[in-house]
């Protein structure tokens, strides 16, 4: 049975929930879980202070409600499932390497930051720097699948290195900035300057803005690979599968950097 955490008070401060992971709670009793400190200020607040706990196997943890102040939800997740029936703050699913995290509400900036594996699904909108590296880190997301049903803020997929990001809503300016490799698909309207400073990797835009001059038109793309990739995405998103079935036109760039990246737009 699932371990269920039901918030009983509004969080009086930002909380760090990164300790609430299946592999960290596996051998803990309800009492031990209730004693875990979640505070980010000098005022202590424990799991027991904040949540009503329904004991169960920690392989699946369900939060019955969320909050913009729930930071680090699923941060470092490596197995099992975490479900949040509400919003989450910053760093949701950051550095996760396995398992599954599903958040039904909106998330703050840096969701999926530097994630390396597993599946992260966000049903609402995300803040800036989706999947991006944090202060002083060199790489963004390096593996796994990130599905965002809503819209993303600025610089989604910054320094993406491997893995797939699928955004069903729109995306803000500087989408896929400094991309190193990996795949970034956006079905909604994309903001200005996608792929700025990208070295390699693939961006696919259903509704692209005017592309920068440092992206060179390569004409219609004749390959069977988009259809294969579309079938891979079909269980996740019918819209994405449809985008990959239609003919695509390829732009190579960013020519200001290495120029081995590509942006696909509908032909």
């Amino acid at each position, binding site marked *: 049975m699932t371990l269920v955490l039901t918030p009983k008070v509004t969080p*009086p401060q930002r909380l760090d929930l990164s300790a609430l992971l299946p592999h960290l709670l596996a051998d803990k009793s309800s009492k031990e879980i209730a004693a875990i400190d979640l505070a980010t200020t*000098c005022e202590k607040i424990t799991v027991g202070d904040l949540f009503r706990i329904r004991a169960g196997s920690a392989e699946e943890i369900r939060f019955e409600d969320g909050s913009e102040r729930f930071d680090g939800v699923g941060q470092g997740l490596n197995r099992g499932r975490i479900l949040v029936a509400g919003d989450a703050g910053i760093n949701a699913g950051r550095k996760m390497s396995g398992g599954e995290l599903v958040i039904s509400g909106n998330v*703050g900036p840096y969701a999926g930051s530097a994630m390396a594996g597993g599946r992260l699904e966000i049903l609402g909108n995300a803040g800036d720097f989706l999947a991006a590296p944090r202060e002083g880190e060199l790489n963004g997301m390096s593996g796994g699948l990130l599905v965002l049903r809503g819209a993303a803020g600025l*610089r989604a997929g910054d320094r993406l290195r491997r893995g797939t990001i699928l955004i069903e809503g729109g995306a803000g300016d500087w989408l896929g900035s400094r991309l190193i490799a990996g795949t970034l698909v956006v079905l909604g309207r994309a903001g200005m300057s996608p792929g700025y400073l990208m070295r390699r990797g693939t961006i696919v835009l259903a509704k692209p803005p005017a592309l920068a001059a440092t992206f060179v038109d390569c004409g219609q793309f004749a390959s069977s690979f988009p259809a294969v990739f579309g079938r891979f995405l079909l269980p996740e998103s019918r819209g994405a599968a449809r985008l990959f079935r239609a003919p695509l036109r390829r732009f190579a760039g960013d020519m*200001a950097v290495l120029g081995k990246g590509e942006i696909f737009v509908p032909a």
Partner: protein
Amino acid sequence: MKAFVDGAAVGLDAAAAAAARVLGAARLPVIAGLGTDVAGARAAIALAEKLRGAYDHLASDVLLRDIDVMRQAGRILTTANDVRLRADCVLFVGPKLFESLPDLPKHLDLAAPPRLSVTKTRKVFWLGASRGEAAQVGATEIAASPSSLPQVLANLRAAVLERKTRANGAQKLVELAAQLKAAHFGVVVCAADSLDRLTIEMLHGLVVDLNEKTRFTTLALGPGGNALGVVQTSGWMTGFPVRTGFGRGYPEHDIWRFDANRMVEADEADAALWISAYRAEAPQWNRRIPLVALAKPQTRFAYPPRVKIEVGTPGEDHDAIEFSQEIATFALARAKNASNAPRVADVIGRIEQNLAKGSEAC
């Protein structure tokens, strides 16, 4: 110079005691502004640690653009002296570069030939200058609007790499690229104030690319008011730049979480200490949280501070150690008009003494 508690003039001791009560009672106090000399910054950061609060600088948005490029991509930097002595090719990028450093053009002395250069001649270009600015240093102007700079610099970098692009009319940039590549010791002069983070990264990447064939470096101008000195002080005290918090008892750096304006508006910070000793600047936030202000007398606040202590200006009212951008290191700034106006460091020292006497944070 005066001190006030709830608008009423009081002695410095009474004001410091009141400030200690306001800050000591907070769950998460934020020390914002931080417009002060090195001694003031040291005292403020030590106070933040004691209170288990957070600190941020009034110019953080600008400072962090350079810092983020530094720590995520790298930069090649030089000093103003090297520009004056060695640079045979200088490229200014962006508008209003001398606004916070009005003496810099004189210091760079670009009209004179570079003494330590093999060519003894100097070419000066300015990409995206504001009106009349390029003539001030005798630069050849290449027009570009601030909003077009990200793409113009991308096109310039592609031109240096001799890559094909779709840029029309980029002939001027191709010519500029040839001039840059012909330099023996080239320098890009730019300021984070007028460029965004990615454009700064593009510009430093351009310098790295030019170093494949020649020597090229950057003179990166920061905000005034000892902002760079505060960042360095923060670095040696905590290992992090500004926007660092001690909420959990140890320093954590988070450029989003410890943005002072955000913390106040989101009802996370429940008291603030505002410091602005260089300029009469007030906090930007709208929520009226209990405020202690160490500020210049003429500062106009959006709402009255609980405690206001008027402080002297570093290098004006009292001697101060500041980071000098002219020489790219710390220097002593002697008081130009010495007065007995209190120093930020001394006032914070008094507040801290009162904390020790009374309620400790949490």
